[in-house]
């Protein structure tokens, strides 16, 4: 009788600039399953890791926002293809992390993939829906277009490890922003696995960066960082949100306030998150012969 096979475990690391570094601090923390069993030692990101992630997101912004909307749509759709391909893995990850049934986890993963597809299709429609030509009283062709806000910090929801995460990350990048995501502190594994999908898709390095670690330690670094243009506080619960919003005033950050407790992430998202981190630019072009 052969010995039972010993499973090869995965190391869960940060995702910065398309690479998977450990925290430069050398720290990690224990993540358990919903039932309390050990799952992994996850990288405990430091302030320096957070700053590195912002540098990566800033560096990726010019290329990502200059790519054609059609190209961005295809890149994001490719992510959905890979998610579908690895859905079994995500169902397991969500089931373990959230302690839900396989059926519930499966429904969550399906909704997350469908949500990614929904936002992938928005890249080349956003300007048509959010832009306008404006009938000014004068010889000008006056038009308004949505442009990305820039580098967005995202505090991921803590009540939905994959669907919630996709629901806040995908609209920001579909609108041509680049992001630094703070994963759900206590249940980050589906997020890290998503990062592994991103790394093997066509999303350029630095467009989406993922940090794991204590939100109370990392979120203030991003909220007060002067090279972060906006912050989505979706997962900043209770007393944490106010100080983060106040810190964001340093450089007049665009703020998306926390999702209401009990928010149903499976609900039709509409366009509100897509429009949250865009800047409307209006151009007066002369008309004449």
């Amino acid at each position, binding site marked *: 009788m052969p010995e039972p096979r010993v499973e090869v475990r995965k190391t869960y690391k940060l995702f910065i600039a398309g690479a998977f570094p450990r925290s430069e601090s050398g720290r990690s923390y224990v993540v358990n399953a919903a039932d309390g069993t050990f799952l992994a030692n996850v990288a405990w990101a430091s302030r320096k890791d957070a700053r590195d992630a912002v540098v990566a997101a800033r560096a990726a912004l010019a290329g990502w926002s200059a790519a054609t909307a059609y190209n961005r749509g295809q890149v994001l759709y490719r992510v959905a293809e890979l998610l579908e391909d690895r859905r079994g893995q995500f169902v397991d990850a969500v089931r373990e992390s959230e302690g839900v049934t396989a059926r519930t986890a499966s429904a969550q993963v399906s909704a997350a993939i469908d949500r990614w597809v929904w936002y992938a299709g928005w890249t080349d429609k956003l300007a048509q829906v959010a832009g306008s030509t404006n009938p*000014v009283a004068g010889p000008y062709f006056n038009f308004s277009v949505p442009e990305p806000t820039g580098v967005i910090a995202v505090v991921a929801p803590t009540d939905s490890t994959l669907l919630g995460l996709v629901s806040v990350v995908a609209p920001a990048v579909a609108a041509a922003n680049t992001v630094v995501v703070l994963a759900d502190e206590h249940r980050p594994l589906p997020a890290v696995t998503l990062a592994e999908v991103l790394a093997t898709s066509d999303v350029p390095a630095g467009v989406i960066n993922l940090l794991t670690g204590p939100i109370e330690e990392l979120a203030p670094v991003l909220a007060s960082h002067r090279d972060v243009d906006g912050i989505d506080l979706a997962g900043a619960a209770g007393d944490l949100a106010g100080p983060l*919003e106040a810190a*964001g005033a340093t*450089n*007049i950050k*665009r703020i998306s306030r926390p999702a209401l407790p009990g928010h149903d992430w499976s609900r039709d998202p509409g366009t509100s998150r897509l429009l949250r981190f865009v800047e409307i*630019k209006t151009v007066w072009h002369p008309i004449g012969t």
Partner: protein
Amino acid sequence: MTTPTVPTPEHTAFEYAPAPESRAVLSLQPSYGLFIGGAFVDPLDGGTFKTVSPSSEEVLAEVTQAGPRDVDAAVASARAAFDGPWGRMPGRERSKYLFRIARLIQERSRELAVVETLDNGKPIRESRDVDVPLAAAHFFYYAGWADKLDHAGFGPSPRPLGVAGQVIPWNFPLLMAAWKLAPALATGNTCVLKPAETTPLSALVLADILQQAELPPGVVNILTGDGSTGASLVSHEGIDKVAFTGSTEVGRRIAESVAGTHKRLTLELGGKAANIVFADAPIDQAVEGIVNGIFFNQGHVCCAGSRLLVEESVAETVVEMLKRRLATLRLGDPMDKNTDIGAINSKEQLDRIIALVNAGVSEGADRWSPACTLPERGWWFPPTVFTDVSPSHRIAREEIFGPVLSVLTFRTPEEAVAKANNTTYGLSAGVWTEKGSRILAMADQLRAGVVWANTFNRFDPTSPFGGFKESGFGREGGRHGLGAYLDA
């Protein structure tokens, strides 16, 4: 390419006989209460202050310093109107009130222009031709939206936010009141408006207009006062929305104060706009645009073109032509219809301008102003041009909010973009070139909320206005302007 010829410099301004606008059309009261619940009332917290004409230091009227209990009363009045008649009123009825207000502003346009010029110090030509007509147009534009909100792209039956606290600056007092009130009312909100300390009068005339329009009591409340009144208003627990136009410094404090509350916020803050002139630009037109960009309203314009970026090959010509043009500007009595440059709005603002101009000189930039006699009374500053400016100079980085232009040069479009975007602000930018494709390429790369091509400082109620970066967020004007007051 032809280089424009520069006429000899012994050019002088034409002589004109004085052509003062009459003040007869305006009947100011010696003192004003607060406009709460549809009537002028005495304050609960007491306190008055005088508003003076910056061009003569003449006291125009005494107005009330609203205190915290007055803010309570105004917010309660706005809440009652929101929960009452205004909140229940169908959009088509709200719409007609806004049309009435637009018409009343048109009917009383001369009176409004006179009061604005007296209280603010801006030339009557500007208040008559820009501020007042645009204010009327803004109400007229948003009036038509009130019953069409289902079609505005914010989902079916978008809801108003509730009570809006609105704090406005002194540079375009009536126009900023219109920018705040018109979209808020069209979307079904009620308002408490705080005009600037130094320019309360046109808002008080507007209150009279609201009475003539028979706008239901409490829908708009107007509180005069200083910064402390504004601070009590924006931090009041009874409001649902804060809209502020003013400095980035104050905007930052307001953003901190609404953090962690349910209040929505839009901010229209400072700027340090680049006005970029390429060698192929229509130079005569560009010089007019540069003048309009920075000397319009004495440079008291958040989107002013305060940094001139001119392509090196034409820099000398442009600066020479600019100086020649500035020599013809007429500075003086704002009530004179021929005046181009009026008074600086306050002593405080004049001191700020002087401090920054002195910093420009001490940091090594080259200062120039046309020969120009400043009136003895009032607060004045001559049109000023700095050359030899480096991007690190304070005059190239900080908002001066006065008639002071910093000239820098560039060699390539890439350098122009890099220099233009090298600022924490992002409100506006200008591009001057005959090449349409270049206009669009530059507009694409400039990080600014408004890009004017072959024009500058042009406004329209249909055209969204607002900043990128530390110039604020939210838009005023156009369909987008509705979003600032809807729960969407």
